[in-house]
C-alpha cells in the first residue's frame, strides 16, 4: 500500500484466481487433448459397462412396453401417466443448467463458466434425449407418434391442435434440443480443429477434419464466430426460460386443484435450474477427479455453483410456501384440501422427502466450509437430484389421486416396468456422458485460453 492513499493493487490479484497455478495456453491444449487422445482407464471401462447394461435393460423394458401395451405401467384412474410425466419433467429440468451456464452466464460476462460450460451443454443434450423418450413411448405406438405430435395432417386430413399446451411443449422441447445442440457444436468447432491439427493417425485426422469444418482460427472468422455466439446466447436465454414455462403450462392451464396455479412458470424455471446445477455438480466433481482437471475446475467453480444452487433452492422453497398461502387465501375448498392432503395425506412421505432434500439440506450451503467441501457438496447435490424428482412426482400424483369425486379416488404405485425404464434412462444418460467425457474435449479449450492471465492484449499503449 502506498502512502498517498491509493490502492496500489491490481483488482485481478485480490480476486481468487480461476485456475490453479499459472497455466499457459499450451498447458490447456495438452491437458484436455490428452484426455481425448489417451487410452481410457480401467475404471472408465468398468463404469461404462455398468451404465450401458442399465441402459440396455431400459431399452428391453421399453420394447416390452411397446409389445404388450401401456397396461404394464402403474397408470390408473385417476392417476394417469404419473410416472412418465414425472420423468419427462425431471429430465427436461436437468437439461436447464447447460444452456443457462452457456447463455445467461455468458451474457453476464461470468468468466468462471468457461471451465464447466462444455460438459454442462453436453449434459443438456443427453438429458433432453432422455426426456423425449417418455412422451414418445407413452403413446404406446411410437411409430405413429410422429403424426400425433408434429404438425402433419392425419388420415382424416385433420391437423394438430395449436391451442393445446401439449403441442406448445412439442415445439418448445424440440426447439430447445435443436438450439442447444447447435450452440454446443458451434462451441466445439475450434477445439475440434485443435484435435485435427494434433492428430497423428490418418483415419482419426479425417474424422476431426470433417467435424471441424475446416476451421482455421483466422481472425476474420473469429469476428463472425463471436457475433454468432453472442446471438445464440441472446436467443437461448429467453428460450431456456420459455421451455420450462411451457412445460408448466401443461399443468397450470388445466383446472385441477394443485395444478391450476399462476406461480407455476417461475417456480418451474427455478426448480429446473436448481436440479440442472445439482446434476452438473454431481457429474463435474467426479469428472474433475477422474480426468485430472483440478487445475481448471477449482473449488471456486464449485462454490459458485453452490451459490446458484442455494439461491434457486430458496426460490423453490418460497414457491412451496406461497402455494400453501394461496390455497388458503383463494377460499377454494378443493384447493385447500389438495394442499393439506399433499402434506399429510397418502403421499405425505413423498412431500416431506421433497421438502427435506430441496429446502432443508441445501441450507447447509450458508456455511462457507461446506460450500467449499467437495465430498459434502457431492452428497448434497445427489439429495437435490432426488428431491427434484420427488417435486414433480408430488405435483402430479398428489394432485391427481384425490380429484373432485371421492368415488374415483385412487393410489398410484409404479410397476417394475416403470422403475426399469426410469433406471434405464439414468443408465443412458451416464453412458452418453462417459462417452462424451472421453472422446470430446471436456473443457472449452479455446474459451479457457482466452481468459488465462496474460492471454489478452494489455492495452497499455492506449
Amino acid at each position, binding site marked *: 500500500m502506498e502512502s498517498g492513499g491509493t490502492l496500489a493493487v491490481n483488482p485481478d490479484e485480490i480476486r481468487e484466481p480461476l485456475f490453479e497455478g499459472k497455466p499457459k495456453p*499450451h498447458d490447456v*491444449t495438452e491437458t484436455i487433448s490428452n484426455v481425448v487422445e489417451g487410452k481410457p482407464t480401467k475404471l472408465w471401462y468398468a463404469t461404462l459397462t455398468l451404465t450401458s447394461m442399465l441402459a440396455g435393460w431400459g431399452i428391453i423394458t421399453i420394447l416390452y412396453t411397446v409389445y404388450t401395451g401401456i397396461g404394464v405401467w402403474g397408470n390408473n384412474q385417476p392417476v394417469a401417466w404419473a410416472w412418465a410425466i414425472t420423468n419427462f419433467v425431471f429430465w427436461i429440468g436437468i437439461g436447464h443448467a447447460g444452456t443457462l451456464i452457456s447463455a445467461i452466464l455468458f451474457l453476464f460476462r461470468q468468466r468462471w463458466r468457461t471451465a464447466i460450460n462444455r460438459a454442462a451443454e453436453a449434459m443438456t443434450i443427453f438429458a433432453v434425449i432422455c426426456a423425449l423418450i417418455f412422451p414418445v413411448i407413452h403413446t404406446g405406438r411410437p411409430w405413429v407418434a410422429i403424426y400425433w405430435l408434429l*404438425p402433419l*395432417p392425419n388420415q382424416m*386430413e*385433420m*391437423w394438430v*391442435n*395449436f*391451442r*393445446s*399446451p401439449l*403441442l*406448445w411443449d412439442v*415445439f*418448445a422441447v424440440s*426447439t430447445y434440443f*435443436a*438450439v442447444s445442440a*447447435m*450452440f454446443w457444436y*458451434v462451441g466445439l468447432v*475450434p477445439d475440434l*480443429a*485443435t484435435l*485435427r*491439427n*494434433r492428430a497423428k493417425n490418418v483415419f482419426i485426422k479425417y474424422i476431426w*477434419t470433417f467435424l471441424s*469444418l*475446416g476451421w*482455421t*482460427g*483466422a*481472425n*476474420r*472468422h*473469429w*469476428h*463472425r*464466430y463471436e*457475433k*454468432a455466439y453472442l*446471438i*445464440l446466447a441472446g*436467443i*437461448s436465454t*429467453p428460450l431456456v426460460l*420459455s421451455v420450462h414455462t411451457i412445460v408448466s403450462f401443461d399443468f397450470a392451464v388445466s383446472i385441477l386443484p394443485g395444478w391450476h396455479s399462476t406461480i407455476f412458470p417461475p417456480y418451474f424455471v427455478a426448480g429446473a435450474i436448481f436440479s440442472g446445477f445439482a446434476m452438473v455438480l454431481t457429474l463435474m466433481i467426479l469428472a474433475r477427479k477422474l480426468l485430472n482437471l483440478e487445475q481448471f475446475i477449482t473449488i471456486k467453480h464449485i462454490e459458485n455453483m453452490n451459490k446458484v444452487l442455494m439461491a434457486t433452492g430458496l426460490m423453490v422453497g418460497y414457491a412451496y410456501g406461497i402455494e400453501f398461502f394461496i390455497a388458503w387465501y383463494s377460499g377454494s375448498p378443493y384447493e385447500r384440501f389438495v394442499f393439506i392432503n399433499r402434506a399429510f395425506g397418502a403421499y405425505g412421505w413423498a412431500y416431506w422427502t421433497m421438502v427435506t432434500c430441496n429446502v432443508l439440506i441445501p441450507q447447509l450451503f450458508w456455511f462457507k466450509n461446506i460450500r467449499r467441501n467437495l465430498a459434502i457438496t457431492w452428497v448434497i447435490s445427489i439429495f437435490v437430484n432426488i428431491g427434484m424428482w420427488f417435486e414433480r412426482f408430488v405435483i402430479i400424483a398428489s394432485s391427481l389421486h384425490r380429484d373432485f369425486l371421492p368415488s374415483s379416488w385412487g393410489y398410484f404405485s409404479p410397476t417394475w416396468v416403470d422403475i426399469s425404464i426410469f433406471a434405464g434412462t439414468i443408465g443412458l444418460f451416464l453412458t452418453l456422458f462417459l462417452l462424451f467425457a472421453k472422446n470430446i474435449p471436456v473443457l472449452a479449450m*479455446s*474459451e479457457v*485460453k*482466452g481468459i488465462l492471465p*496474460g*492471454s*489478452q*492484449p494489455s*492495452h*497499455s*499503449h492506449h
Partner: protein
Amino acid sequence: MKKTAGMTGLFHDPDTVLSAATEIRRAGYRQFDFHTPYPLHGLDDAMGVKRTVLPWIAFGTGLLGTLAATLLQWWTGAVDYPLIIGGKPFFAFEPSIPIMFELTVLFCAIGTVIGMFALNGLPRWYSKWQNDPHFLRTTDDAFMVTVDSEDAMYDAGKTRTLLESLGAEQVREVEYED
C-alpha cells in the same frame, strides 16, 4: 501446380500482434489476417475488420420464423380444417404466441449458424496455409500472421522486411498445391 499462398510469421505476445496489425494495415495491406487459438480483444479494430452482416441475417431468419408460425397456425386452424375446441376461436393471437416464439428462436438459430459458416467460407477440406508448420501452432498457443500473395502490395522482399520489423518470428513464404 505449386502456387505461392503468401507470407507467414509467428507471434507469441498478444500486444505485439495488436501493434503489428495496426502497422500492416497502415502500410496499405488489405488481404492479411491473423490466425489465433482464441479471439484476441481489440484485433478487429487494429486490423480494420468491418462489422459483419450476421445480425441482419439473424434478424431476417427470426422474422421468417415468426411469419411461418403465424401462417401455420392460422391456415391449419382457421382455413384448412376449422374445428371447434372448447368454444375457442379458430385463430387468436394469444394462444399462438408460444409457437410463434419457439419458431422465431429456431429459425433465427439455424440462420445464424448457417450464416456464420457460409460467410466464413466453411466448411472446406483444406486451407492454403495448412502445409505451413506455423498453422499447427495456431490452434495451440501461437499467433500466425498471413499476408496473402494476391494482395496488391505483396512483394516477397518488402513484405518479409515489414513482418520481421514488426516482431514476427520465422517469417517465410508458403506454397500450396492448387
